[in-house]
């Protein structure tokens, strides 16, 4: 592919996955500006892979893997801020898009439900049910088996159901 075609592919990937990567980063670092910077860095590193002609089997999985690595580096340098602080301090979920108060309240409610999950379970749940990744895709990102991911997702789902007072 030439420069124009590669760039077109790159921007199409951006259009499709930017919000997912951003959300993934927000739920990890709990700071919107940091999440935005990380998202951009993820895409820049993804471009570097494309421009070198690297064979990319699963673009989405690669994006999440890059994001996880960058977030790990970020954690090494920064102190973690909890999701509690995010909800308490009135974290802006939707930037300047002026979402309704009800929509913002719904997001906060969802955050409140998942905040007590361990980080890996929370990540697996959001990748599966918010971003729509399959257990196989998640396994590729986590470096685990699909079966292990499925078990984790089911356990996390049960915890969320308990918090939501779901009855069998």
């Amino acid at each position, binding site marked *: *592919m*030439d*420069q124009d075609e*590669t*760039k077109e592919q*790159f*921007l199409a990937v*951006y*259009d499709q996955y*930017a*919000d997912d990567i*951003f*959300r993934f980063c*927000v*739920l990890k670092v709990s700071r919107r*500006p*940091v999440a*935005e*910077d*990380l*998202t*951009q*860095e993820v*895409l*820049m590193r993804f*471009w*570097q892979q*494309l*421009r*070198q*002609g690297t064979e990319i089997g699963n673009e989405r999985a690669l994006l999440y893997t890059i994001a996880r690595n960058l977030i790990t580096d*970020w954690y090494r*340098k*920064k102190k973690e801020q909890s999701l509690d602080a995010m909800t308490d301090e009135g974290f802006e*979920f*939707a*930037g*300047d*898009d002026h*979402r309704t108060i009800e*929509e*913002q309240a*719904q*997001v906060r*409610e*969802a*955050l409140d*439900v*998942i905040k007590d999950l361990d980080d890996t379970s929370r990540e697996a*749940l*959001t990748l599966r*049910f*918010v971003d729509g990744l399959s257990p196989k895709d998640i396994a590729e990102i986590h470096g685990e088996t699909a079966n292990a991911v499925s078990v984790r997702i089911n356990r996390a*789902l049960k915890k*969320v*159901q308990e918090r*939501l*007072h*779901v009855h*069998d």
Partner: protein
Amino acid sequence: MTDNHTPHFLKRLKGIALSSNERLMMRERLAAYADMHPTLDATASGTSIFTFFASRRFSLYAGALMAFLVVSSGVTFAAEGSVPGDHLYAIKVNVNEPVMTVFSPTATGQAKVAAEIATRRADEAVVLASRGKLTNEHREYLTKEFETRLKIATRKTDELTQAGKSVEAATVKAMLAANIAGEAQALGAVDDEGNEGQRAFLRVLVAVNEHIEGDDIDAATAVTIAVSAQADEDTSATSEEPVTLMAKSANATTSVEAQRPKKTQFIRLRFASTTLPVRLNTQLNTGRILVPKTDVAIPDAKEPADTTFTGIDH
């Protein structure tokens, strides 16, 4: 609520997203980044960043980039002061610096930008050292980046010379030498408390400076002066009056009048058509120069403001 609704409940988290404006601005930045770092196939076939400058795409993007910089200057501006370890540092080196290169399309501009970027790596080491955060990891990174950028700057000034622009090449080299000397001096002034990493980086800067100085440059045209603005705590009215700095070389004498500085700043000495940066560092209690081949006048902070000084102190 049944368990079929739990996944639906979790989907509310889709509300966490970039705003329309954020998406658009990031898209523009990434598109510009992709243009500035073309695919390896494009580079090999000659569609380099310099071919891009001559293309219609560049003229389209120049306008878009300019508009983007005006709109998003908050993030990119804030990134300018960042150093390794800061979360905006990636913006500084991966967005701001490529933009500097794009907006300096001439050969002379490219050489100047390359020299400036090399200096920025050295300056970051000084900032980290002053904060006590020049770790071995940061030092190794900055040393490698500094030497890489220096090679690029050297290559670009050599290209200028080969293109018959020896005056421009000498100016860029002199500026680089003066800047690096200034950074070396600033780094040396930081109390390192036995930080071997800091001393190691300082040796790199001094060695580079000596190399540039020995590289067929008229040393008389490259001078960095570090002087004390105030040696006393008594800030009398004379401390506000301008000082005169005089510099002599084998073939030129120049002087400049400047306000007595209260903090570090650059004062420029002009030799013929060459303008050179001179840094005044208020942390020093004695005047000191870094390029001893030139006779430079050093002001004694206790002297009256209108005294013309002579002599060398190094």
